[in-house]
């Protein structure tokens, strides 16, 4: 959208782009470095916020920073300054931010107002107060409040060198604190009551987490703005969750995603200085999120659906082969013969084995053909290939082993076994099969512990 702007197009060239992205200029280098550091710390702290299921707390907290920011500014002006003292401004912002979010917790603990409403109340009332104060500040004679508004939308370009050093130091400190308290925060997020029974001061830990969030928020305010810093706290963590089930890895990945978003976002925004930096940073992070949501290796949508599809196919194949094998068993001249021979089987009998339609069976057969499990098949009968027969006997054997194991070892009525065995055998590993064989002292394919014949559906 913004590339359509003629002014922007004029200033845009690959030269500059490369210069910015690879930090060849001192000014951009500081901006990009500190925004990346901010991203790293936000990603780290945000992971715990996500796991504590309080992602929106960052929302309430950051909105509640506004009145503190303006109060600090007013105090500075009243004492004759210009209001451009970053540490004090941030301290003021952090103070009301922390107060506001602590109030949410207090409301939840002491009244019937739940977390969500508490956040909504704190957020809107504090922000409203902030707006009123901002009005007052703007209309005071001889003050320049333009700097204050950059805190709301974020304008990295408006920052000065000393600011960057302060922000970078703070961001690094937050990251280190977060790592130092990893164990405590993990426990708090996973099992609050257990933590309390161990004697950990849960409320203090909660406040500590809030403090770190407040720190990230005030640090990030100038670079990405107090509304969009929320995104920085939530999005990298949520994106990282799609790639791993391991907390440690999630923390680092989240920090990494935050850092990259900061880097790319800040670089882009110094190329297009008229655009709010925060918005670009957030859009970079959201793009990473959407990619992770779709393709994440642990919980991504595509991965999960593929897994499901694969499992369904595997189960379908196993059902088919076992149905053929069991039919062969029934067709063998001596019913007790444990080793049925491979020969053509009428399709009708396979269909009757399970609640399949003819279409289902045809589909399964077509897939089995591709996997070389079938010798040949037509509308009337089918025969397994060498490998198909081997696979069928292996599958049937696993299934029976499970059934027997469950009957002998787990007090389960034989009439219920078949269904249960169906759902677990597909997950059986070779080691477990071996273990079962040893436990049961069985080497061959045992006979089914329950009658195989089913009523043939008309």
């Amino acid at each position: 959208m913004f590339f359509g702007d003629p002014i922007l197009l004029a200033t845009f060239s690959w030269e500059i782009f490369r210069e910015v992205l690879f930090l060849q200029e001192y000014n951009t280098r500081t901006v990009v470095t500190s925004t990346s550091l901010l991203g790293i710390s936000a990603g780290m702290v945000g992971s715990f916020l996500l796991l504590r299921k309080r992602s929106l707390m960052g929302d309430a907290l950051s909105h509640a920073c506004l009145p503190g920011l303006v109060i600090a500014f007013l105090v500075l002006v009243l004492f004759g300054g210009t209001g451009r003292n970053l540490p004090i401004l941030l301290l003021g912002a952090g103070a009301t931010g922390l107060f506001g979010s602590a109030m949410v917790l207090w409301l939840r603990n002491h009244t019937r107002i739940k977390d969500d409403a508490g956040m909504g109340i704190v957020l809107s009332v504090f922000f409203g107060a902030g707006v009123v104060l901002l009005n007052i500040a703007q209309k005071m004679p001889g003050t320049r409040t333009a700097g204050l508004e950059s805190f709301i939308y974020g304008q990295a370009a408006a920052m000065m060198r000393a600011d960057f050093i302060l922000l970078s130091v703070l961001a690094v400190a937050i990251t280190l604190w977060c790592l130092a308290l990893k164990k405590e925060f993990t426990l708090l997020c996973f099992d609050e009551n257990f933590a309390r029974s161990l004697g950990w001061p849960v409320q203090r830990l909660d406040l500590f987490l809030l403090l770190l969030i407040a720190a990230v928020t005030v640090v990030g305010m100038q670079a990405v703005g107090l509304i969009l810093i929320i995104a920085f706290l939530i999005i990298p963590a949520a994106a990282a969750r799609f790639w791993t089930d391991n907390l440690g890895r999630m923390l680092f990945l989240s920090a990494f995603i935050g850092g990259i978003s900061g880097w790319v976002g800040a670089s882009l925004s110094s190329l297009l200085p008229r655009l709010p930096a925060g918005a670009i940073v957030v859009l970079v992070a959201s793009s990473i999120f959407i990619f992770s949501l779709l393709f994440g290796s642990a919980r991504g949508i595509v991965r999960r659906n593929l897994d499901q599809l694969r499992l369904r196919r595997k189960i379908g194949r196993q059902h088919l082969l076992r149905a053929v094998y069991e039919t062969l068993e029934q067709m063998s001249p001596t019913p007790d013969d444990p080793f049925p021979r491979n020969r053509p089987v009428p399709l009708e009998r396979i269909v009757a084995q399970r609640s399949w339609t003819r279409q289902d069976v045809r589909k399964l057969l077509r897939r089995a053909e591709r996997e070389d499990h079938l010798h040949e098949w037509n509308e009337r009968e089918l025969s397994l290939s060498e490998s198909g027969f081997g696979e069928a006997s292996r599958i049937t054997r696993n299934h029976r082993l499970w059934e027997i194991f469950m009957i002998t070892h787990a007090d389960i009525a034989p009439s219920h076994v078949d269904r249960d065995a169906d759902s677990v055998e597909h997950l059986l590993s070779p080691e477990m099969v071996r273990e079962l064989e040893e436990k049961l002292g069985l080497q061959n394919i045992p006979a089914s512990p329950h009658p195989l014949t089913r009523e043939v559906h008309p």
Partner: protein
Amino acid sequence: MTKTNLPPAEDDPHPEHSRDAPLSIHDLTVAYHRKPVIWDIDLDLPEGKLIAVVGPNGAGKSTLLKACLDLIPRVSGDIRVYGKPYRQQRSLIGYVPQRESVDWDFPVSALEVVTMGVYGSIGWFRPVLRKHRAKAQEALEKVGIGHLAGRQISQLSGGQQQRVFLARALAQEAQLYFMDEPFAAVDAATERAIVALLRELQQQGKTCLVVHHDLATVARYFDHVILLNMRVVAAGPTAEVFHNENLQKTYGGKMPLLEEAGQALRQNLS
């Protein structure tokens, strides 16, 4: 196990309570909003016993546990563990919460959850060391799922998750264990494993207070029982207090299964 209804004497707050009972509850009342959940609980637990807390839904079984553990505010009451206030004795206490109380989607492995049991002894800011993990691994082996240590907890079955919680409590190396419905919705194999574990703990002289919902197995698994319905209806050795009359008092008319349970009981005792 003793029950007291006597008003406490002036000089000693509870003279009739034994000095070093594993857990001694005095005059415990808990209310949510204005509605009392448990009233005037007065109990001394005997040492080295398996004690079941039994009662209908909403009788305050979990509340009793949570109030003892300081997880919920009390209206009144005094909790002593081995003769000292609860807060000083935390290291002697192990806790197995209800399985539903946590989010099993959390990105940690079984081993990491069990390691949480030793966090108390590690202390602030200190990292988890190999020896702590070894201890956790040992606890996992003890409940029979050592091979699942690296599994993410959402990939465990319900019974395995329950065992993880038990292993975590074991890793705490406590003297007094609070278990909130450890038998809820577990498979037969896990149930047997839990019972074996409880017996082992008992042999080591530890005391277990277990919220239990299955009346049919109370007599088989536990030597003491507390029948709870807002108040302690009866408490004592299972053989003495776990009979139809007390059950009727505990469950009132709300219990259609009562007869059945009574039958199961008679069969068990005969």
